[in-house]
């Protein structure tokens, strides 16, 4: 049986084990403290691993951040406190917030008091970060940047030069640092290549050129192997639009 967030490789990477030991050195209770994030909510949870009574008290706070270009900004101008007692398996606290910004993260600190001892847990490190993306592909004039940037899949300049409407052309909402990594950002040479391909009606080649560019560029966060992997579904939307 697997614990929440445990993989078959036996690596549990977004939670912490809360172990209570009595004065004789015997393990009394074991709880697993972890966070979960979805498109609509953020949740701090505990899972009973080995305990014969409820978890006495959990008190903590969380902070909701949004990415604004390259910087994290606190959404609520501070942390929000929560507390819960006599806890069994399941959520300690759930915060309902639909995803909106290009990337959001939740940081929590929780102090668990059980059998007279207190322990503090936090997810403020890269391994236990709780974050979610809000990437999207849509028409340029129908999609806001939401803290990231709108990247024309086929460069706007290439489209307009060849008589296409850039406002209704498809673009991808990307993280700003990823957008800076795309070949067309700041480079007239890259754009010129696409412009020439479109003028020759070599549409397939133009799309392939952009796909290759995404494949050749690094993910600014170092999480994915390249931008093609990171924005895979959004690229497909652009290609088949």
């Amino acid at each position, binding site marked *: 049986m697997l614990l929440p967030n445990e993989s078959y490789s036996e690596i549990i990477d977004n939670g912490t084990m809360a172990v209570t030991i009595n004065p004789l050195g015997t393990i009394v209770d074991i709880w697993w403290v972890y966070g979960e994030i979805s498109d609509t909510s953020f949740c701090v949870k505990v899972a009973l691993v080995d305990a014969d009574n409820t978890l006495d008290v959990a008190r903590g706070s969380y902070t909701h951040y949004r990415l604004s270009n*390259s910087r994290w900004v606190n959404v609520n101008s501070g942390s929000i406190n929560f507390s819960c007692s006599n806890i069994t398996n399941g959520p300690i606290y759930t915060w309902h917030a639909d995803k909106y910004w290009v990337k959001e993260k939740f940081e929590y600190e929780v102090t668990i008091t059980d059998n007279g001892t207190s322990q503090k847990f936090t997810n403020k490190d890269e391994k236990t970060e709780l974050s979610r993306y809000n990437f999207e592909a849509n028409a340029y004039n129908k999609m806001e940047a939401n803290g990231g940037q709108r990247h024309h899949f086929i460069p*706007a300049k290439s489209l307009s030069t060849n008589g296409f409407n850039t406002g209704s052309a498809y673009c991808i909402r990307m993280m700003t640092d990823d957008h800076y990594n795309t070949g067309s950002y700041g480079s007239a040479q890259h754009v010129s290549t696409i412009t020439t391909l479109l003028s020759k009606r070599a549409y397939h080649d133009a799309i392939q050129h952009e796909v290759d560019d995404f494949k050749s560029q690094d993910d600014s966060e170092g999480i994915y192997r390249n931008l093609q992997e990171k924005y895979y579904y959004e690229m497909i939307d652009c290609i088949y639009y």
Partner: protein
Amino acid sequence: MKHINIDLHVGIGLLKLGMNPEQMKAAVLQQCKELVPTGNHRLAISEDREINGIQYRRYFCNHLFFLIAFKGDSAVEIGFNKLIKDTAVISLYGMDAFATPAEQLILALKEFSSCRYDSDDELLSTEYEFDEIGIRLWRQDAFHPKLLLDEDYMNMMYRVIDDMREFLYFDIVAVRSKD
């Protein structure tokens, strides 16, 4: 707020034209440390494919971004991105390059150089090249207040008009070496 002057045909701040990639890497790192002493100074460099003998390298460090073009082993264009405006003023002929509206900046630079731009409308181009002074200005998209009076434009773009206002200003200001 720190001030950095653009030295025509020379460079911007510690980044100088003619530097090789190793020198540039060290200069970018040092520039970032000087501008933003705290935080993570891990430098990431992304290399574009070479086109017509020119290769762009993209430098990221501690919330700053620089776009440098190399010809062979020598930097021939140094571009600063607008993210720097939170920490420094990039000064071009006494103007703040990232806080001066594009129209005003273009008008001022035309006093010193001819200007090439990439669309039929000088006010709605995305790239401007001032060859005599070796300056290139670039923005992702073009915007001008006159578009607010254009009914067709507003009908099409009303939903994202706040995002468009960002393009009143340039994204990248670059200095080039003399040919």
